[in-house]
């Protein structure tokens, strides 16, 4: 066991001990102890809020913030109570200041984005840039009095890329250090300005979505895990309690992580107070334009959840479809993995052009839909389902999204794809025309789970740019989604096809139960996979996870002919030329080939004209193999990986051959269809002549 593993094990023991101590404290000191609680279905929200959840509550925030729409800025003060649950002393702090990624074009975030060929701030005005500035940071003494002012000690660091211009991560030394088990309290004052409506956070008109807005501590274990903000990656923080008071213009509706505790007016402003325990982030939104709708989610065996929808007026007719997507996530993820433990879930329909859609935060998320959204095309259902699903994978099982985003994105995409298949059918392809406004639904094209909603088509266009094991922030810009979402989902679906859905559901439910409120790593997932399947899986991990190899198996040759031979054969003592044909016997020859570097065991299936089939396994390691079958009838088809277990095979058309192909008919049909399109285009353009 290496040093890092021993430290990690000590950390796990200490955290487990702390959690046990906390649990015991609750049981011993709380009259309304768990055993005496009424069934959770009957709990009002406020009481449900106090039911303790087993999170370590490492980093706790008590925040006051005021929004000034005139300057598009916020001013805030936070009291951070941080418990060192690591295994070593903390000699410094790490503070994430995410909005500084949009401070200027020298930031790591924008540099990485430019590497991907995109320069969104190339012509930005001064007002378009954003920032977070810490104006004061003070250590708070145990008695609550102000301690050492460490404002001047706060300095920016860039441990990942040594970019001295990056301001997304700051550090300050602590004196004295905070020993394991001790508590640090900091009072931080800051101001921030929203960047222009851009990448998840920002403002447009009177719509504000406020995320990654407060100075946030990194994660501490055997040292700080705190990365700079990269374009490729998302976020990572510790669980804790949040008590936040947000002051906004009077009459503006507000939605946030957690449960509303109070609302008070003062002059032309309203202050909302929200609280939520056992989460690792806090986001909020405000606008005078929202229409609010509520619906209670209830399903047998699961605690009820109050779903709150803040929807744009032009999308009001889609409200039920938003609730349907969220309810599908709560129901199916709840049944498959474990219950959603919070009393509320807020769905935010972002304003047009806000660039804040499709993003998850604890108990609140943004969806995003279109004014014209045909039914039976899973818009908005899909994005609502996906982001609600993140409450489980990211919100509860809180992997480090900077390093292993696939653990939430990939598992979630795999899961939402299955939910769509089970509960949201049919799901037709839609494309948009006339400036991407006018939808057209293809009633002939139903999107399939294995390929379409796993985004196979995106994956196959760049399958080898990176390996899934590459830390997310280090992926080549532009491949993050292909790897973390699509390849991961296809990998999990391949495992499902190898071991059955029941097995994968067991893997994920155990992984969920074991790692919720914690920070798992990929090795933790693979450990559960090994435990449940009873197999080593190392070959699979090497081929699929650790490598960037592409997979492509093909039937290279397929023939079925009368078994015959000719040449010189022994006849008593002489050699005689003979031509032999074994009447009534056909030799079927199948040559299979591995066209790419990826290796995977596959089956070869041959079907004969009398309906019989023959199946042979192939370990898929060699570059090619030959299979011969002697039968009294001819074969009609040969397939490699006939059940398509290996969903990562980028070219499935070459996986089969038949002696009665329909390719001529298909080619004629589709080329003639295409011809009508071309003729129409010619007539349309010739209108001008």
């Amino acid at each position: 066991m290496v040093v890092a593993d021993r430290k990690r094990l000590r950390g796990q023991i200490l955290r487990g001990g702390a959690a046990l101590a906390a649990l015991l404290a609750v049981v011993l000191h709380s009259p309304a102890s768990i055993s005496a609680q009424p069934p959770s279905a009957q709990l009002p929200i406020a009481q449900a809020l106090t039911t303790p959840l087993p999170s370590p509550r490492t980093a706790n925030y008590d925040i006051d913030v005021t929004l000034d729409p005139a300057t598009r800025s916020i001013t805030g003060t936070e009291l951070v109570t941080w418990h060192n649950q690591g295994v070593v002393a903390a000699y410094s702090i790490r503070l994430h200041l995410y909005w500084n990624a949009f401070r200027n074009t020298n930031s790591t975030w924008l540099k990485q984005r430019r590497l991907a060929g995109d320069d969104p701030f190339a012509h930005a005005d001064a007002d378009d840039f954003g920032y977070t500035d810490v104006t004061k940071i003070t250590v708070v003494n145990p008695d609550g009095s102000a301690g050492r002012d460490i404002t001047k000690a706060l300095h920016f660091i860039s441990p990942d890329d040594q970019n001295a211009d990056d301001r997304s991560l700051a550090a300050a030394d602590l004196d004295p250090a905070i020993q394991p088990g001790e508590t640090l309290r900091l009072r931080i004052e800051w101001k921030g300005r929203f960047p222009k409506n851009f990448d998840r956070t920002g403002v447009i008109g009177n719509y504000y979505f406020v995320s990654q807005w407060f100075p946030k501590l990194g994660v501490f274990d055997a040292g700080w895990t705190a990365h700079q903000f990269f374009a490729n990656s998302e976020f990572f923080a510790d669980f804790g309690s949040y008590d936040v008071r947000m002051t906004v213009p009077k009459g503006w509706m507000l939605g946030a992580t957690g449960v509303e505790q109070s609302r008070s007016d003062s002059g032309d402003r309203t202050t909302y107070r929200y609280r939520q325990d056992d989460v690792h982030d806090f986001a909020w939104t405000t606008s005078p334009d929202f229409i609010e709708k509520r619906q209670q989610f209830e399903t047998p065996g699961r605690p009820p959840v109050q779903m709150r929808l803040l929807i744009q007026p032009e999308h009001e007719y889609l409200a039920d479809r938003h609730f349907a997507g969220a309810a599908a996530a709560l129901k199916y993820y709840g049944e498959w993995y474990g219950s959603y433990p919070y009393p509320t879930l807020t769905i935010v329909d972002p304003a047009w052009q806000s660039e804040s859609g499709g993003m998850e935060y604890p108990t609140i998320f943004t969806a995003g839909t279109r004014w014209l959204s045909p039914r039976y095309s899973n818009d908005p259902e899909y994005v609502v389902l996906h982001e609600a699903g993140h409450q489980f994978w990211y919100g509860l099982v809180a992997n480090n999204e900077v390093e292993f985003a696939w653990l939430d994105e990939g598992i979630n995409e795999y899961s939402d794809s299955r939910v769509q298949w089970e509960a949201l059918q049919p799901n037709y392809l839609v494309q948009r025309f006339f400036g991407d406004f006018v939808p057209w639904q293809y009633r002939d094209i139903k999107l399939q789970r294995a390929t379409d909603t796993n985004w196979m088509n995106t994956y196959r266009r760049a399958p080898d740019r990176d390996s899934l094991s590459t830390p997310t922030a280090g992926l080549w810009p532009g491949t993050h989604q292909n790897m973390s979402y699509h390849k991961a989902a296809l990998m999990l679906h391949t495992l499902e096809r190898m071991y059955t859905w029941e097995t994968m559901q067991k893997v994920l439910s155990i992984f969920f139960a074991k790692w919720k409120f914690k920070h798992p790593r990929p090795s933790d997932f693979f450990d559960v996979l090994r435990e449940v399947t009873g197999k080593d899986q190392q070959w699979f991990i090497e081929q699929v996870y650790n490598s960037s190899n592409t997979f492509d198996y093909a039937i290279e040759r397929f023939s079925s002919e009368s078994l015959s031979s000719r040449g010189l054969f022994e006849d008593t003592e002489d050699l005689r030329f003979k031509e032999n044909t074994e009447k009534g016997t056909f030799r079927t020859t199948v040559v299979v080939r591995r066209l790419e570097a990826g290796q995977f065991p596959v089956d070869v299936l041959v079907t004969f004209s009398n309906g019989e089939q023959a199946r042979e396994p192939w370990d898929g390691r060699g570059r090619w193999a030959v299979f011969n079958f002697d039968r009294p009838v001819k074969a009609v088809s040969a397939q490699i990986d006939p059940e398509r277990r290996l969903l990562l095979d980028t070219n499935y058309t070459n996986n089969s051959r038949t002696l009665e192909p329909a390719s001529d008919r298909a080619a004629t049909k589709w080329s003639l269809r295409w011809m009508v399109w071309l003729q129409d285009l010619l007539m349309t353009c010739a209108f001008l002549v």
Partner: protein
Amino acid sequence: MTPGAWGLGLGAWGAWLDGLNRVKRAPWLVIGVWLSTILLALPLTLVLQEQIGAHLGSSMAAQAAADGVNYDWWNEFLAQTSGVGASFVPAILGFAVVMKNLSTVADVSPMPMVIAIAVSMYLLVSMFLAGGVIDRLARDHDLGAGAFFSACGVYFVRFIRLGVIAALVYWVLFGPYHTWLFDDVYPVLTENVTVERTAFFIRLGLYAAFLVPLYAFNILFDYAKIRAVVEDRRSMLGAIVASWRFVRRNAIAVGVVYKINILVFLLVIGLYYLIAPGASADTLAFAIGQLYIVLRVIVRLQFAASQTALFQGRLAHAGYVARPIPKWPDSPAAEAIGPR
């Protein structure tokens, strides 16, 4: 039927009806223009057929593609193909054809080079045929293939000259003007718009700002061609000026005729919306597609016929064309097969 029979002094509606009758009396024009689209499209269709056939090979995936839609195979093909194959997208299905092509023009969307070349060639073919088509519709009686193609040849060079001017105008409209409207004006107008519906209607307004001058110049060049043929004008600049005079003096009738034709065009695509075939394999689907193309051809000819009828009804008379019927060069063979 002559225009005067309606007793309308050839108003717009009378001109439109007259034009429709002229088209009805020229079935070979319809067939010929329809065949011209097939002749241009067929070579590339065969290329695509070859590409699809080669990609499917003897794969079992072909069965699903032949019977319906094999979308997974389709995406695989698109990921691996180029040239003509890159234009083989789901928008070739059913009514999406119309959506995509109108959107391509409205948004000036790029198209694969090979398609752009095919379109350019068809514009040249159309320009060549335009003289013969207008001549035939103007004379309103059968002339025979020889006279038709002779007329095509006579006016082709003139229409090339007109085409140069038109190309310059259309380049400005589809180029800098369209770019200014949609890459400069549209972002400014929608910068702080938070309601998609509003952005959509702004875009519709800009489409109108784009299409109005487009149609205006289209009308101008249409009547320039008509005047060039009917009055046997050699100068295309003169034809344009004369067209402008006619349009200006008869603006209401010209506009009404154009609008009726646009309405008919919308009815045709509305009909196709109702009957456009899905992905089924039967030959009826192809026949419906070709029926739609034939209707498009009729609409296009109707534009020319009704505009010609309006012009002749206002400034000349039905059947009048200044130039004598084009004749073949003197030769026994030509006399044997020439118009009788």
